[in-house]
């Protein structure tokens, strides 16, 4: 069967990695290619780049980065952040990104999911959903970096994105993001059991057990990890060794 995927997330701003590996060698610290190559060699199953540039110029540099990464990194990578049109998607994919992730634009214009899935195939369209708990087993979709409530119910929205052609859901718990208290298991489980497409759990990883819980109890098909890896609190081989010892199928290299 397909293995669970361990996915490092790198935040990029104006062409530089701003949330990435804390290298001792400062010179390469902000280099997206160096960061991606490092995780690729360590055994990452995929990589996600989140472009947090606030300007058009900043976003343009993402296309160059995609090409540079595609020249030396031979595992799949996804690009998200600020993507709002078919043209944006086309540019990123044709320069070597394997998938793109859309969030705010998908909520504002759900047709974008449908049109992009038709044109490029569902397998490369990831819909990112930022969820905030608003009650017992109830979560609301937030957009614009988790700042703006939409009134949309997370489960309803997740189902709708599947109907429109999304190939995967990147599900972030706003409540847990940055806390290291563990993934929102209820949220992950509820969404994963509501949709037929793979779900990537994100937000809250603080220790090995959290990853196990997200996969086994939360039914996540992949886990997104940032700080925990960047600060070298955990390494990918360590994570995979642990999950394997717990009976979870992982892809080990070497």
């Amino acid at each position, binding site marked *: 069967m*397909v293995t669970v995927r361990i996915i490092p997330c790198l935040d990029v701003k104006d062409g530089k990695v701003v949330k990435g590996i804390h290298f001792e060698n400062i010179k390469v610290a902000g280099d997206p290619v160096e960061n991606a190559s490092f995780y690729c060699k360590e055994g990452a199953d995929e990589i996600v780049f989140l472009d947090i540039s606030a300007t058009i110029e900043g976003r343009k540099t993402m296309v160059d980065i995609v090409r540079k990464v*595609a*020249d030396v990194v031979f595992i799949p990578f996804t690009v998200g952040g600020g993507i709002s049109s078919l043209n944006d998607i086309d540019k990123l*994919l044709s320069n070597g990104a394997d998938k793109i992730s859309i969030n705010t634009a998908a909520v504002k214009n759900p047709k974008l999911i449908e049109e992009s899935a*038709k044109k*490029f195939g569902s397998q*490369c369209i990831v819909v990112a959903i930022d969820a905030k708990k608003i009650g017992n087993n109830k979560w609301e979709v937030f957009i614009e970096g988790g700042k703006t409530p939409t009134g949309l119910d997370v489960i309803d929205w997740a189902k709708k994105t599947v109907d429109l052609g999304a190939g995967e859901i990147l599900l972030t718990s706003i409540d847990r993001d940055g806390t290291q208290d563990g993934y929102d298991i209820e949220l992950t489980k509820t969404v994963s059991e509501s949709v037929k*497409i793979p779900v990537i759990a994100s937000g809250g990883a603080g220790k090995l057990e959290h990853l196990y819980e997200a996969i086994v109890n939360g039914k996540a*098909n992949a886990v997104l990890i940032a700080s925990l890896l960047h600060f070298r609190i955990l390494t990918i081989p360590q994570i995979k060794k642990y999950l394997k010892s717990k009976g979870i199928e992982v892809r080990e290299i070497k």
Partner: protein
Amino acid sequence: MIGIIKYGSGNIYSVFSTLKFLGKEVVLVENPKILDKLNFLILPGVGNFASSMENLEKGGLLEKIRYKLKDGIPFLGICLGLQLLFEWSEEGEREGFGILKGKVVKFKDKNIKIPHMGWNKVKILKESFLFKDIRDNSYFYFAHSYYVNTQKELIIGKTNYGIDFPSVIVKKNIVGVQFHPEKSGELGLLFLKNFLEGKWLQ
């Protein structure tokens, strides 16, 4: 010279950059005329079955590729590029190249997530130069919702996702893989190297 057929929209660059990385001379092919200058032909897999067939027909590439395949050019179809070789697909309900016998069908198991997305094992069924230095049950990267239903004789590698499906097929000069070798790390590079440098004597 290796030619990568450019059709439809999506990530064709990765196959190109992977071959460049392996030190190969490679060109993107949009014009059927170039096909006569090539030693290897690669049909990458991006997009949708029906619209890809339309694009290939429109550009006049379809007939020329079909001719080259019969002429014996070493050929690699990746993902959708594999599926297009068959007679018919459920995706868009239309016919493909019809070079290989079989149909392309969707995963139907209710207990699995679709697309089949991620790293999965390839079980080697028949020894081949394509698997040189690649161990049985090695992991490769998959991203697809459809698979081919074909004759047993063609299948040299299979993968399980709810059911067993063909992940590597070979018929004479034609090789097809359901996974993405260009996205399968070191082993993917090795598979491509084997394809390009292997002995093409049957």
